[in-house]
């Protein structure tokens, strides 16, 4: 529903912008904050190799090169007592070798860097099956444009949270797969226990017949949803006072740790 709210706001702004507006690049006097650690990690269902990425933030005025953090001690444990210390396979990239992701298990990560400790916990939800991707006409996107609806039966009486990644391969462009940069999340606040028909609104533009669409649906826990929800509020069109997303890490770093299920569907868009 959040995405619908965003879409509404986009429409609203689009209308005003068309009516009379202009954009220009301006120079603002920005304060620089102290660099912070950024930790990103996922435990995926049925997999045994999982990756954790550690980097640092930079000043706003600097180039978009983010220093990776080497030499950290990263340990992941599940609630059955399985534990593994991760190996740094590339600078800033840490991996498990044999820790299986199982629905219902709770995973805890501990990261030690330079005497600082960060930790987070995430429980892998039971997978909701992504049945198919269905396309409907997009009224806003112009002629022939379509938007995707990931169809699945939401289980009743439990809170379910979903996150999506989407890629498109345009039929007439020789660009390969393009990733939609939007944060796409859905919950069942308004659609508990129904066959979900909520479209996903990305920022990449409507699908056209002949395009290929790759959609990954992740079932995520409440705290990870909260993280992405609060991150999405900062996106253009959010219009809310921005703030750092609510992380499930303690210790004062940025980022998230998600134990999740993951399913991918690839489909060609029909006229």
């Amino acid at each position: 529903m959040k995405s619908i709210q965003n879409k509404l706001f986009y429409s609203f702004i689009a209308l005003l912008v068309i009516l009379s507006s202009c954009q220009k690049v301006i120079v603002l006097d920005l304060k620089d904050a102290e660099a912070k650690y950024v930790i990103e990690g996922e435990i995926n269902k049925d997999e045994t190799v999982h990756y954790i990425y550690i980097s640092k933030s930079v000043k706003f005025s600097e180039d978009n090169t983010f220093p990776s953090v080497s030499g950290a001690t990263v340990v992941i444990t599940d609630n059955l007592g399985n534990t593994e210390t991760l190996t740094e396979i590339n600078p800033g990239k840490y991996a498990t070798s044999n820790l299986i992701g199982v629905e219902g298990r709770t995973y805890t990560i501990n990261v030690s860097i330079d005497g600082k400790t960060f930790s987070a916990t995430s429980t892998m939800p039971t997978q909701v099956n992504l049945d198919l991707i269905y396309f409907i006409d997009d009224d806003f996107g112009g002629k022939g444009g379509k938007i995707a609806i990931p169809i699945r039966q939401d289980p009743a009486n439990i809170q379910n949270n979903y996150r999506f990644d989407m890629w498109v391969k345009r039929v007439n462009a020789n660009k390969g797969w393009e990733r939609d940069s939007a944060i796409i999340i859905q919950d069942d606040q308004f659609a508990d226990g129904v066959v979900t028909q909520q479209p996903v609104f990305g920022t990449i533009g409507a699908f056209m017949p002949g395009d290929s669409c790759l959609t990954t649906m992740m079932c995520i826990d409440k705290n990870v949803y909260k993280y992405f929800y609060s991150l999405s509020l900062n996106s253009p069109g959010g219009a809310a006072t921005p703030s750092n997303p609510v992380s499930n890490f303690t210790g004062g770093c940025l980022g998230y740790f998600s134990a999740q299920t993951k399913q991918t569907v690839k489909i060609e868009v029909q006229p």
Partner: protein
Amino acid sequence: MDEAPVYNASHLLGFFSTFNSDAIKTATIYKGTQPAQYGGRLASVLDIRMNDGNNKKFRVSGGLGLISSKLNIEIPLIKDKSSLLISARRTYADVFLKLSKKENLKTSSLFFYDVNAKLNYKLGKKDRLYISGYFGRDKLGVSSFGLTWGNVTGTARWNHIINDKLFSNTSFIISNYIYDIGIKSNGAKISINSTLQDYNLKQEFQYFATTRHKIKFGGNSIHHSIIPGQIEAGEGSGANTIKQRAKLSWENALFICDEWTATEKININFGLRGSGFSLLGNGGDFYIYNTSGNIISTDNYAMNKLINTYFKIEPRVSASFIYSKTASIKGGYSRNIQNVHLISNTTGDNPTDIWIPSSKNIKPEIADQISLGWFKNFKDNQYEVSIESYYKSMQNQIDYRDGANTLANDLLEGELLYGIGRAYGLETYIKKTSGKFTGWISYTLSKTEKKINGINADQWYNAKQDRTHDLSIVGIYDLNKKITISATFIYYTGSAITLPSGKYYINNQVQWLYSDRNGGRMPAYHRMDIAVTWYRKQTEKYESSWNFSIFNVYGHENAYSISFRENADHTKTEAVQTSLFKMIPAISYNFKFL
């Protein structure tokens, strides 16, 4: 508006005021110490009274313009006894959208309309009855999305003269604010809507005890019913209808104040307002949250059962000392309580902001204000000058937690954080009231801050409405009997906003790092408007004028929003400002049948 509160007082994102100047008789703003008959708000009160209408002659006046038109009719129903006033406006900027080649713009809408009506009836020498109403709606729509919002108010007021010393005023007031977001999905409609409904019964007496004491006393009782946001989903929309129970509350107040002319030079006004605010049961569950926003207890209360009541005393005193024929000093202290709270996390005015009553979690907002001012007239009252200062301290201020879910959330109170606020400032004003050239300059220097536990590392931060400088200059020049030229210049400090203080990479993209809440500023806002009014030949029956105006003459690009993006080669980040309403010329034709 005729004693009825108006929620969200702007049309089209603040471009037009809710109040139609044709229908307004008086507008009094109480910024310093408010008299005790006003209550329920921490901020200043704008007391707007509608025109009563002409009970002698039938009159029609109006204006036709490019962007909007208006019509004003005064009908005497019974000569010298009763009259009716109707005043209406409609904008039609969206007519131009129909000319667009783009299909989705042709079907877009963007307009507002409003209607004011007032009936006035002299029942006898001692009794007068007024019935007035306001109805306004804004509509914004793009293809399958639509947003409607607006106010409806109704007031019935009976003035009765009991004897030459005692007057009575009895009012019954209804006030309603709604918004509705409509989304068409798969051919089915989903609506997210909110309603705020007040019923208010008010009794006020004015007692002219002696020539030196004018006493006002009375009370009122308001029933509030608020649906903060619910979902109505049509069949096949893939969403569930979630009806919210209205949040019910009952607000009662008694007040007394005395305008005492102590000496020829000293006036003292003291008052006391006692208010009680009760949260009422609605058959649903009520939750109590701990400081982390988790539910610690749940209670169910039957319809209209008293849950809890806050009793508050609001003392107010102000005094003026007229130390010469043209100069005076005024000062005052007041306490104000607010029990229906506006909770907003957006950077601008938003029709979908949420109002919520005090509860076991939300305490009444309290403001204590002191003010001091100096007033002087110069050159036979041709010039009026004033300098006023104030300091306001606020308790039980409210803000959202980071990442709060604000949409139709039944557990909204768990998303709130509480703290304190403070505001202080200096207001200067100079006005030239007569001659060929008239006008005024007003300048305010101020600061408004909040300190909320859990936000900005528990440190003070600028409130979103904080404006360091606020300047307005208005000049009106009568060139001759036929032509009047006017110009307005406005300048104010940009809103306090949260700007990035760094960036990082996550989820395959660059994200901004934030540190200080509202530590940055939008660029300053300024613009100049000019207008020329050309009065046509006046006959006994008809007068008319043309008005040519230009909004934002020098086309300054004022920032509506600021966003951040990667530059063209994806190596750096840049700030982009979007502005609206650059320069807008307008013509209107105004007429009046005498």
